[in-house]
């Protein structure tokens, strides 16, 4: 095995002054872009892509530009947690699960604990993933190839099964939330038949007189994750917070010092279980050519909660609930580089842009990349380790800055968050229609929020739905309409069975309890 010397050589090259500088700049850019709701790593990477052409001209290799973009990708994964915790808005789908416990911690005045836990868990998750990536990349690529449509659908169902536990106690309201998210995800065009669906062409087609009053062609691109997520969290949840606290929100204690950050670091071992679950689960879900890091972070949260003795504390500010999704999304994003580099298929919009970058720099992603382009691959892998270390240090260093932001009076922070929500939605898709839609979703979310409708399942359903639906239908075309295809294939079969059991367990349990309980008179 010549992995170790190759890796050492790779790290050595990644530490070359220009590469190290690119790592540091990339991580800082990524951190801020990731922390800005709506921007996220995909915009950061896409916008700096042309610039990498210049870097390539200077250094003469494709490695340095790739190191730069990978560093942005890394930094943004850390940054995603920051907006989830401090603003309560998940800037990317991968950070939705981080809001479940990160936000309550911040509202309890323990934002620094959540931020530190997220940073360290991210570091451990990415490190575990880096080790796996280094040791097993090419063989793992063949595992990813075994995942066809039925397997990906089974995996999505498994991710959905972890939803059941997320919704709280009210089963019908959770079901409404999931179903609504999945239906909204089908708006736009159906890729299987090419037909338009639910486009509300004239939104009030029940009342023909109003047809054409509003330009609704924006529905043709579907309802995107960020439109719903920013609406629900940036507008709906914010108004709810203002109203339920009468505007008296304290996000963090008055005195955040270097020492209190240090004491938060010392408390990290409590979050070790979530971190470990997230690190391993995240990587293995991440390498599968499906959705990138989102199902990984979700499943990590669900599994950690499932195996916890203290299930009640989740959703109210358990550090494991922050550590698990953060470890998982960092681990999964390293994992997602694998199908991108060795199979040429991107698992997320960001890896899609990285892929475009590789093509622009004259590289051919594919199974031969590792054996034929070692001069590209090993310094890149080396840079993963370097970027990750840089990212955790930069992140920890910036925590006091983010906390300072939270100490602003809420009457200043709140309008800033509203402005950020509006610009962020526009920046994500460059479309005013989406901004209006975001506002409508926000008001609707607030009205439902008062009545305890859980909305996180809808937000996640709109991410997973567009993967689950086509893979289900593609599988059924393959099997001429027989659902047995999901159960008879060697990989999808066991996943399906586990998913079905996980879905049925809480439902049966709930039925048993509710049957015993008689309605109050």
């Amino acid at each position, binding site marked *: 095995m010549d992995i170790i010397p190759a890796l050492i050589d790779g790290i050595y090259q990644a530490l070359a002054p220009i590469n190290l500088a690119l790592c540091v700049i990339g991580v800082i850019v990524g951190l801020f*872009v990731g922390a800005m709701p709506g*921007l996220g790593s995909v*915009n950061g990477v896409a*916008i700096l892509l042309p610039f990498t052409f210049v870097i390539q001209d200077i250094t003469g290799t494709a490695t340095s530009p790739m190191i730069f973009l990978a560093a942005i990708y890394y930094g943004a994964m850390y940054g995603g947690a920051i907006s989830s915790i401090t603003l309560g808005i998940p800037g990317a789908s991968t950070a939705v699960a981080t809001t479940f416990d990160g936000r309550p911690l911040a509202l309890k005045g323990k934002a620094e604990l959540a931020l530190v836990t997220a940073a360290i868990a991210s570091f451990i998750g990415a490190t575990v993933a880096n080790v796996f990536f280094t040791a097993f990349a090419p063989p793992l690529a063949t595992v990813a190839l075994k995942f066809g449509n039925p397997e990906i659908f089974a995996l999505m169902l498994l991710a959905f099964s972890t939803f059941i536990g997320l919704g709280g106690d*009210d*089963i*019908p*309201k959770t*079901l*409404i939330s999931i*179903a609504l998210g*999945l*239906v909204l995800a*089908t708006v736009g065009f*159906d890729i*299987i*038949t090419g*037909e*338009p*669906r*639910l486009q*509300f*062409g004239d939104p009030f087609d*029940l009342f023909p007189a109003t047809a054409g009053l509003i330009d609704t062609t924006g529905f043709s691109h579907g309802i995107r994750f960020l439109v719903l997520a920013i609406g629900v969290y940036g507008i709906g949840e914010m*108004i709810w917070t203002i*109203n339920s606290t009468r505007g008296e929100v304290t996000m963090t204690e008055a005195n955040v010092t270097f020492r209190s950050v240090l004491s938060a670091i010392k408390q990290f071992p409590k979050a070790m279980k979530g971190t470990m679950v997230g690190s391993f689960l995240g990587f293995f879900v991440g390498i599968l050519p499906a959705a990138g890091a989102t199902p990984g972070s979700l499943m990590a949260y669900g599994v950690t909660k499932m195996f916890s003795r203290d299930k009640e504390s989740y959703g109210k500010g358990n550090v494991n609930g922050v550590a698990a999704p953060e470890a998982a999304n960092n681990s999964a994003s390293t994992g997602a580089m694998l199908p991108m580099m060795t199979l040429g298929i991107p698992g997320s919009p960001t890896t899609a842009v990285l892929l475009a970058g590789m093509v622009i720099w004259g590289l051919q992603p594919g199974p031969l990349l590792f054996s034929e382009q070692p001069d590209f691959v090993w310094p890149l892998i080396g840079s993963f380790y370097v970027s990750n270390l840089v990212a955790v240090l930069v992140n920890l260093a910036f925590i006091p800055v983010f906390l300072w932001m939270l100490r602003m*009076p809420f*009457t*200043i922070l709140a*309008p*800033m968050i*509203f*402005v950020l929500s*509006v*610009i962020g939605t*526009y*920046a994500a898709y460059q479309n*005013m229609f989406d*901004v209006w839609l975001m*506002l409508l979703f*926000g*008001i609707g979310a607030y*009205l*439902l929020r*008062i*009545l*305890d409708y859980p909305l996180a399942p809808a937000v996640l359903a709109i991410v997973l739905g567009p993967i689950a*639906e086509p893979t*289900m*239908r593609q599988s*059924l*075309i393959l*099997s*001429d*309409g*027989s659902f047995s295809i999901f159960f008879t294939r060697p990989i999808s079969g066991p996943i399906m069975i586990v998913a079905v059991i996980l879905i049925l367990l809480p439902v049966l349990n709930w039925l048993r309890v*509710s049957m015993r*309980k008689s*309605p*109050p008179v």
Partner: protein
Amino acid sequence: MRRAELVTAFVLAFFSMYLMWKSGEGPSWNPDIARFDNIGFDETGAPGSGFWPFWLSLVMLLSSIWVMVNWWRRTSPPSQSDAPYMDGYSWRMLLFIGGGLFAFLGVIEWLGFYAGIFLFLIYYLRFLGKHAWRQTLLIAILTPVFCFFFFDVAMRIVLPKGLTEPLFLPLYELFL
């Protein structure tokens, strides 16, 4: 709270019925395809385009009815609560914040993002937040300036300027 719970369940039930009706719609350029032709399995044996949204909307409808049943049995917390759905403060804040945001988007369509941000921040900071004019103006001016350099210049995401577009041409000349 009790009445709101029931009203919301009815609204959601009607909305899901609308979604079911809408899911069954055939392509507009082919009037020969009947409504609800696409919600089952088609000739290739695979589900049609309306399959997924139609049946999921049905799940939503049934769940809304379930919520109504829980309302009647008084098992869900909102159906037991006597607290008002929204009190005076909540209505006022929803109106001021929600209305402010709608006006904000309207101004964006008309005068562009930067004028919109400026006016919205003045409205919120001065009239809802009761901050001093000095602080209000400082934030209301610095935020759009920062946003211009961050989005338009650094990120190359050109935010719409509406009628104020001509004012920005010299800035493009300088910075882009």
